[in-house]
């Protein structure tokens, strides 16, 4: 595998593992949904920042994370996980687009 060329897949695989680990470590469904929402917020922020450049790798990472989260959180409701993650992403993006949260470089 050429890492320089296939880095989006590598990053996506990493997010798959992170998703599984996070879902396995959350003890109950409420923590699972909250963590999923928070990760969605982070994805929303990253999506806003990379909206002009690297949307495809980010989309791959989000889908891989979702898959990992579903696999790890098999005890939870799949639809709720999907809804919470999408809500997190959309709210995160909207907060940045409306300049409620400013996206600043350090």
């Amino acid at each position: 595998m050429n890492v320089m060329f296939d880095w989006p897949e590598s990053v996506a695989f990493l997010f798959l593992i992170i998703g599984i680990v996070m879902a396995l470590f959350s003890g109950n469904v409420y923590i699972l949904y909250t963590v999923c929402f928070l990760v969605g917020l982070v994805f929303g922020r990253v999506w806003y920042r990379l909206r002009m450049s690297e949307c495809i790798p980010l989309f791959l990472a989000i889908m891989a994370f979702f898959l990992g989260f579903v696999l790890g959180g098999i005890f939870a409701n799949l639809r709720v996980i999907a809804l919470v993650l999408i809500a997190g992403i959309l709210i995160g993006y909207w907060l940045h687009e409306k300049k409620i949260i400013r996206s600043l470089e350090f």
Partner: protein
Amino acid sequence: MSLRNYIDKLKRYFGFSREEWLNFCIVVLCMSIIYSWTDWGVQRFDPVIGFRNLLTAIVFVGITVFVHHAGQRMMALLLGFRAEQRLWWHGLIIGLILVMLTNGKIQFLAATGMLVYLLPAHRIGAFRYGPNLTTVAKIALGGPVLNILFSALIKSFEWAGILSPEIGTKLFVLNISFAAWNLLPIPPLDGSKVFFYSRLTYAFMFGSIASYVLMVYFLNYYSYIIALLFGALTWLIFYIFFESKWRP
């Protein structure tokens, strides 16, 4: 620089802007939730005890974060710059996720980054006029170092009987953990600024502060001198095994 000049600079530039106050409040609130995660009841969830502990945590975390920011601002003004603290959203969310997933075992208390602005009139005649890695590292270190000194002051007050042991211990532990977390070499935390300035200085600082924290946590032993010796040992080990073999 005279003391009068420094006091004047403090009066003019030390204050927080509206956005900085807003960020400060968000950081304090979220970090208080992280800090008081395990204090929401003894046997089972109790909202009354939880809210009381959360309010206490807000006060403690507020003091700690303010001391950290004040340390950086005072150091920046001493060097002729103005420091501005900004919220690191990723750190805040990572902290919340970590505390939830580990049920309060990992309390990641680092969610601010610092920016440095030049105060042209106050740098006139200074060697290397503009901001550089050295000055930024010095300013960044001002926060964690003041946290450590403040924790020592708190402990002294506790030993002198001025503060109750419960308050003293909590504030002490919070301040040193806050300093240690902020020294991680992750941008935009303070540790990253020191790391980019000099790896050896970073090894020394991190070795000193980490050994101090570990001595306090596990041995209940308080000594700056031994912590500095451990820092020097870390510096030496890092130099022998990494730095001396590094070639550009």
